[in-house]
């Protein structure tokens, strides 16, 4: 019995995910199909990649509301470069740099300017969205070179390339978070900012880095989304900030910072993707999908709270 409680406490997220998976497998004959499982992974991958950056930020006790708008900005930015003949690798790199730039501005204002993260990234959310609209007068960009689409449509040993990207980003994120000083400092800042400062760690710099990483991954997300659609629109990335925050908190990372990690975020993103996919296969009307997804987010965090209270 004690063992059972221990398992529930520590692996509840996995059990919840497993249950959802099981129920969809039993109720839809189309769910447990290799192509469909690949679909889920591909459809979850963008949110998962951007949620890695969001995890870094939330671990410091902050929040990044601007990621969705940064996706749109880099999407339109890289799209315009591509149609005007900039070589594909250069356009990809510059697109990602736009994201890094926005992230660094966020980070400096928050860490050195002492403006609350909620306010700064809310402002950046508006600035980047406006920028995305202004870049091409509100119009989407189409007619991107066909070769660009291959960075999204390619496969490696039968595995869609987006899944590979996701795994690579998680591997790098894992390394940074658990094997480097930056990662340890990010945990420390969220855990106890004052103590971290007193122990001689450069708090503002490490905090800024978290936002820069978040901006970088949002930029990468924007470029990848553009390739997936082979089309760039200033309306893209809408509500990504909410999806990534949801993935992070479902994964058990505390909004207060200092606690959590990337395994949870990956499960959180996959859980959201699985829910959307399964509910669509079961033909649940989108209104109810929204209700169910909202309820799952709240339940997951509620469960997490109960766990920490008892433990």
């Amino acid at each position, binding site marked *: 019995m004690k063992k059972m409680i221990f398992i529930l406490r520590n692996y509840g997220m996995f059990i919840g995910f497993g249950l959802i998976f099981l129920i969809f497998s039993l109720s839809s004959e189309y769910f447990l199909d290799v192509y469909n499982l690949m679909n889920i992974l591909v459809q979850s991958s963008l949110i998962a990649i951007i949620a890695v950056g969001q995890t870094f930020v939330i671990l410091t006790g902050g929040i990044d509301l601007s990621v969705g708008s940064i996706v749109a900005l880099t999407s339109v930015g890289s799209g315009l470069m591509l149609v005007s003949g900039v070589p594909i690798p250069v356009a990809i790199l510059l697109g990602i740099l736009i994201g890094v730039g926005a992230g660094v501005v966020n980070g400096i204002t928050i860490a050195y300017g002492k403006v609350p993260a909620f306010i700064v990234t809310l402002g950046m959310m508006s600035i980047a969205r406006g920028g995305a609209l202004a870049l091409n007068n509100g119009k989407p960009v189409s007619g991107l070179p066909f070769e660009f689409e291959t960075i999204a449509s390619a496969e490696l040993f039968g595995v869609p390339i987006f899944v590979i990207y996701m795994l690579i980003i998680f591997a790098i994120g894992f390394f940074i978070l658990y094997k480097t000083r930056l990662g340890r400092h990010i945990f420390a800042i969220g855990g106890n900012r004052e103590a971290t400062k007193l122990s001689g760690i450069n708090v503002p710099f490490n905090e800024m880095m978290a936002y820069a990483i978040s901006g970088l991954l949002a930029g990468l997300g924007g470029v990848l989304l553009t390739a997936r659609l082979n089309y760039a629109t200033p309306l893209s990335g809408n509500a990504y900030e909410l999806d990534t925050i949801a993935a992070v908190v479902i994964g058990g990372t505390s909004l207060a910072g200092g606690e959590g990690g990337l395994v949870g975020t990956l499960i959180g993103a996959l859980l959201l993707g699985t829910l959307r996919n399964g509910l669509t296969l079961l033909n649940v009307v989108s209104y109810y999908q929204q209700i169910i997804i909202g309820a799952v987010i709240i339940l997951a965090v*509620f469960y997490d709270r109960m766990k920490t209270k008892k433990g």
Partner: protein
Amino acid sequence: MKKVLLTVLLVALIGAVVFAKTTIGFIPMTLSNEYFITMVNAAQQEADKLGVELIVQAGQRHGSAEEQMQIMENMITRRVDAICIVPSSSQGLIPVLRKAEKAGIPVINLDTKFDAEAIKAAGLKPIPFIGTDNYYGAQIAGWFALSLLGAEGEVAILTGVAGQQNAADRRNGFYDIVSEYDGIKVVAEQTANWEVEQGYNVTQNILQANPGLDLIFASNDNMGLGARKAVEEAKKDITVIGYDAVPAALDAVKMGTFAGTIAQFPAEMGIKGVQAALDIKAGKEVPTNIQTASKLIYMANVDWFIDYLSDFE
């Protein structure tokens, strides 16, 4: 944990359906707009009549090509027999159209047309289209505006989401008619992204800048209803013409606060979409362009139209 379990069970219950018949995937642009609900209901009636199953899925966000792409991918995995779609962008779904073609699942394009050039450039087979000619419908609105104004006055145009073909067609159709007359000045042209609230805000600004405005052409009724509210609050006498003939706009026409609205027949599109899907499945040839009607609805014929619509509620 128990609660998680309960929720999940609930999910399964809501959705548990047995699939066996011919299935047609149906993807409207959204499900938060009466226009598409009418289309879906008519398609559903037709599907019931013909004994086929209709799977209806829409994105949660208006104009999200990405969401529609995911829905389409999921439908391809489900191996539906055909997909009817109102694309949220005219060019942004090419990669998934390619997937459908590869999987041998025919796609039928309703209401908002895919960019034929982009389809051709991507090397895809032509996709049958069922819908109205928005350019022609907007021309009707233009002629109506001319007759109301006596070919003289200041006009504002509220446009839809930039980059959508029907947004461009509606703006151009109206503009090309009214701009031929020297007495008519198009003093403002702003997007309100098809939304009521944005129509309201944008119109407030337009009224502020153009005190002598006589007429507003809203490229859809939602924006027109927002505009109507702004006009009423400003206590101005400005004519509003809408597009789409949604129920709220029909009420406005009845009350005289809307001069008129252009009706398309979304129910026809839904019905013909289902029929075309079955025809293609049966190996029959389907024309690449099926036009449905556009009609001006104004004081004189609004009751007839409301009666016609009640069949698809």
